[in-house]
């Protein structure tokens, strides 16, 4: 009787080990990116779920979506250390596909602004940003992508080089170097110019993802004015 009970317990433990021991129970391990910072209103969803309020350290898996509200920011870090800073009123979808030995990381931006700080990619790896009108291949580069409501894409490069190709209409392509901005129209035309002062300021501002505050002590109470500062 004792031997039978002993065998049952051991077999149960063995069975549980087989079932759970080789299953990646930690979703972080299978994630594409992790949301490392959330400021104000940030939500995410899986393909078949509703929008959920995002908290710091939320892992994002392939095909997950994320959106930011008014005056809101999210910072995502990919497995290779690349960072994207999702600015206000922006909607993105992340993908990661294992191809051979490499990892293809895609970020699709529907609308809004995203600053990218992409680590130098291995030969077999790829970091791609897709917008309604363009696809940009990024290798060890920093810059800012803005997608307007009509799908027009502006891509400003701060450091490095980005290959950009229109995926609509004329399907033009081009190479965007540091200090340049490409405009990809709905007609698929790619126009590359020097980055304007306005866009340069926007580039500088896009790194502000550090929430700080100013404290005002008054006779009518104490207030805090929160603002974004550089990291």
């Amino acid at each position, binding site marked *: 009787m004792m031997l039978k009970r002993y065998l049952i317990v051991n077999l149960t433990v063995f069975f549980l080990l087989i079932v759970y021991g080789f299953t990646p129970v930690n979703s972080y391990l299978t994630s594409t990116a992790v949301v490392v910072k959330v*400021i*104000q209103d940030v939500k995410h969803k899986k393909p078949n779920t509703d929008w959920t309020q995002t908290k710091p350290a939320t892992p994002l898996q392939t095909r997950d979506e994320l959106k930011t509200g008014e*005056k809101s920011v999210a910072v995502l870090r990919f497995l290779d250390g690349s960072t994207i800073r999702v600015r206000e009123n922006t909607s993105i979808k992340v993908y990661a596909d294992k191809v051979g030995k490499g990892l293809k990381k895609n970020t699709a931006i529907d609308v809004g602004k995203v600053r990218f700080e992409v680590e130098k990619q291995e030969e077999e790896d790829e970091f791609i940003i897709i917008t309604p009108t363009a696809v940009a291949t990024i290798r060890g580069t920093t810059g800012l992508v803005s997608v307007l409501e009509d799908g027009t894409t502006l891509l400003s490069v701060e450091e490095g080089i980005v290959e950009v190709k229109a995926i609509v209409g004329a399907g033009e392509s081009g190479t965007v170097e540091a200090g340049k901005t490409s405009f990809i129209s709905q007609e698929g035309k790619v126009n590359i110019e020097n980055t304007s002062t306005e866009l340069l300021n926007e580039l500088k*501002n896009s790194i*502000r993802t550090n*929430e*700080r*505050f*100013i*404290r*005002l*002590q*008054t*006779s*009518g*109470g*104490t*207030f*805090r*004015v*929160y*603002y*974004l*500062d550089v990291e």
Partner: protein
Amino acid sequence: MKFVKIIFLILITLSSLPGQSIRLIIFPELNTLDLSAFATVEELQGAPRVFCVDIFPTGQYVVLEGNVEWRRVGSNEYEQLLHFVTKPFISRTLCNDDIDRVDVKLQDFDSNNSLIEANIRLGKPTGTYRLTVILFDSAKTEELSRDQRELLFLNPTQTLTIINPRPNNSYDAGNLLVEWTPVQGVNEYFIRASERDDPAQSLEDALVKGIPLVSLKSVGIATSVNLREILDRELKPGSEVVLQVSGNIPGPSGGRKIFSEIVNFTIFNPESQYYSILIERAMRALIKLGDNELIELLRSGQIKPEQLQIRKDDGSIMTFEEFVIFLESNPDNILRIIRE
């Protein structure tokens, strides 16, 4: 005497002997070094290790003669600060905190005390210092080598620094916090403030000859004080004020005094148009965040900007004017206002 020792050690580091080599190790770089930091400790061996010097070969008896001169900012002429000759000593590897633990003693020494005092009053190394060293044999009969170096202090650090008020800013008469950096060794701080009634007057003159507002009042070891609490005379709206903080470091002969730079600032006139414009600008900048309680309180006059205490989360103080400018120049980066 301590000042002499400091200069003396620096001079040693600059000297060179024929056939000998000297390797100077400084932490940090000498041109950013705050020499007056040494004045804040009673004995040099208690000072942090700032520099060391390797002399090769060691074991030779030498005598060092030195001359330290100072050229004020804007002047073309050097004035002698001090001159010294050592007793014979054995060349060795030295660090500043080795002083008084080695056999390096002075034979002769003379100094211009009023000039040294003028240096200390500036509260920081300023202008150009020229250091000349002459190396002799142990009998001081033969000159072996000489070296000279100029140290230019363009952007020096400050020992006693006033954090608030800031130069050329405007402050409210009823809400003026004076705040400064603590200095190790100080047992009593003093505040002196005067009204500068003539813009042509230098800040130094205005402090001494202007209408006295605070006549060297002790505030103990506190590093901040509300100016209103120590005023001898009421602040006039629209007036310009000059202010200096000094500290006493106890020691022989009454110790040593260190001084901050003199800051000048103006007193807000709540009746002035500029002041009401500033309130309007603040409300215009804040309204971009939507209706909020702070704007309502400002609009209704329930809170007055002159009564506001404004600080960043790192503790640094902002004037109301700086706050308004900050809001205006960062419209996209202001997130929200909440009541604590």
